């Protein structure tokens, strides 16, 4: 491990996500091995790695959405099951059917279902909170729109609003920047920064090496195992990128370019 030394804070109560010895397998093939990770609080954390590196799997296994073969996941020092209310989640946009008969506001109120509890209906208070969250992502005027009528970027912002309304100290976002327009990308970046200012931690699966160093304070470089994890300025270097992406020629240009940009 170059850059940051491997840290074993033994599930610090301060760490918004602390993973110990996690292995995840689909069928018989492991996709993540021996993951040890301790994220610092109040940072924007980027997870990067090539396709199939297990970036989304890392998030899903941490949130009990897919079973772990081994390992423990703690959120602020306690198992995820007990800390669920502290965690917000933004799944990949493609994971749902956008033809579903609900409005943008309906989707955002779904972020409050957990708090609301069984059998209770969505009331004025929940709707007001949801409307406020939509306004924060610049979607205030679209609240009554059926979600199919929104563009891809707008749909992504609805998903973000649904996480915002949860008002959680930790938010996991699975590829929020995938296939969005420039305005949405800017809106997401502004949102990430405002969350950091509020002292929240955001963990983001991200694809674009060009913007990696610009958007994130802390990186987890992943390729079936943690190649490097630490503050961006320490770990975002050519050696780690090579280890993460392998020596693919097409990658190297991008890598060189990304490095150059990060130093500008």
């Amino acid at each position, binding site marked *: 491990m170059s850059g940051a030394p491997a840290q074993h804070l033994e599930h610090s109560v301060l760490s918004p996500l602390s993973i110990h010895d996690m292995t995840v397998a689909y069928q018989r093939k492991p996709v993540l091995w021996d993951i040890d990770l301790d994220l610092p609080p109040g940072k924007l954390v980027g997870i990067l790695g090539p396709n199939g590196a297990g970036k989304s799997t890392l998030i*899903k296994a941490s*949130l*009990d*959405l897919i079973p772990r073969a081994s390992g423990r996941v703690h959120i602020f020092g306690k198992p995820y099951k007990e800390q*669920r*209310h502290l*965690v917000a*989640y933004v*799944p990949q946009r493609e*994971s*749902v*059917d956008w033809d*579903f*008969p*609900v*409005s943008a506001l*309906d*989707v955002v109120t*779904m*972020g409050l*279902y*957990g708090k*609301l509890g*069984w*059998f*209770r*209906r*969505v009331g004025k208070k929940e709707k007001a909170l949801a409307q406020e969250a939509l306004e924060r992502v610049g979607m205030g005027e679209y609240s009554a729109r*059926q979600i*199919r009528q929104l*563009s*891809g*970027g707008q749909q992504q912002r609805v998903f973000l609003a*649904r996480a915002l309304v949860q008002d959680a100290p930790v938010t996991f976002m699975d590829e929020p920047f995938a*296939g*969005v*327009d*420039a*305005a949405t*990308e*800017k809106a997401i970046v502004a949102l990430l920064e405002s969350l950091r200012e509020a002292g929240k931690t955001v963990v983001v699966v991200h694809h674009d090496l060009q913007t990696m160093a610009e958007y994130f304070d802390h990186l987890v470089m992943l390729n079936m195992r943690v190649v490097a994890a630490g503050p961006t300025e320490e770990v975002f270097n050519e050696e780690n990128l090579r280890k993460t992406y392998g020596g693919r020629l097409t990658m190297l240009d991008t890598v060189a370019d990304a490095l150059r940009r990060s130093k500008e």
Partner: protein
Amino acid sequence: MTSLISLADYNTKVVVLGVLALGTSCGFIGSFMLLRKRALMADTVSHSTLPGIAMAFLLMVAGGQDGKWLPGLLLGALLSGLAGMGAVIAVQRWTRIKEDAALGIVLSVFFGLGVSLLGIIQKMSSGSAAGLESFIYGKTASMLAADAILIAAVGAFSLLLCGALFKEFTLLCFDPDFATSQGLPVLLLDVALMSLVVLLTVIGLQAVGLILVIALLIIPPASARFWTDNLSVMAFLAAAFGGVAGGVGALLSAMAPKWPAGAVIVLANSLLFTLSFTFGTTRGLVVRWKERRTLNRKIARQHLMRALFELGEETGSDLVPWDRVSAERSWSQQALRREVERAKSQGLVEESGSNLSLTESGMTKAARVVRNHRLWETYLITHADIAPSHVDRDADMVEHILDKALIAELEALLQAEHHLPSPHPRDEGVSP
């Protein structure tokens, strides 16, 4: 006269009310089943009830009871339906067989088993089994008041439960992963939803039969979807459709006893479906055709406006010769004539001799259209890597999608290149 008599008949009333209750609850719960994309699962479950019915009959006869005691038969159907559902889940989970194949396998195996058992029963006993086949096609005439009450009670229970879990079922259907992250027991909710479906299937067996009961669960919600984009409205509308079709179907079949009730009910449902499919206000054929026509007209009008504006810009004259306009977009004379007439009636265009010109309000509108178009063009050119599939240029004014800073940037770019006229050479043309 006979039909009037049978209408007043106590038994007919019972049947009609029973089927109405069945249709209502099936429509409501079916809405969630459809959105959870479990329609074929329900079909498989209904077919898997047959071996349970046969086995229940055999057991009751072996115990010296009346083999056709209804609650016993329905209990058998319920257990066997649940077993079918379990079998689908097991096959999917422990083999690598995909869902559609798993459903097909379970459906045919269970139904085949049921048919074989029925065959054995028919050979074995002396006619006492007659009537068991009515579960396959349904036979409302054999319904008693007690059966109708059972249907109404089970239907009311399902409606209540589904209403109480409305928000949880909604999230389950829309985004199960997110539901899990909210702490909802997704598996349990799924089981609850499918159990309601099994329950309704079982009580519907007698009325419409196990082959057709699926129609009561699928068709009403599918019809309702054509009228609304709101889930609550959809569920209540589906309940209404299901109830009406059930009631009307049962009535018709009572008046003409040769028509089996199940089939008539399904036909009534499909009539509602056809009407919804055609006239539905949200996504019916007519509405979609109108939307398409409005859009086409809007595009044609924008093309005309842009052509007049840009040709005017080029020649420095407000008057644009007709021929230049038709050449600009290779419009046929008729097509151009039609567009011009439409634009004239809207007060956007004036015609003098063989020349066309924009009116004052036409000019304002055209300037806006041209500006919007050029900003989009520039945006697509300068941000080609991200943009193309994510913008709908005709539907969205550029201001709604891009932020102010970016628009200012694009405008500056256009002005610097003296292109607040066109950003592209004229001969490249402009795609609609």
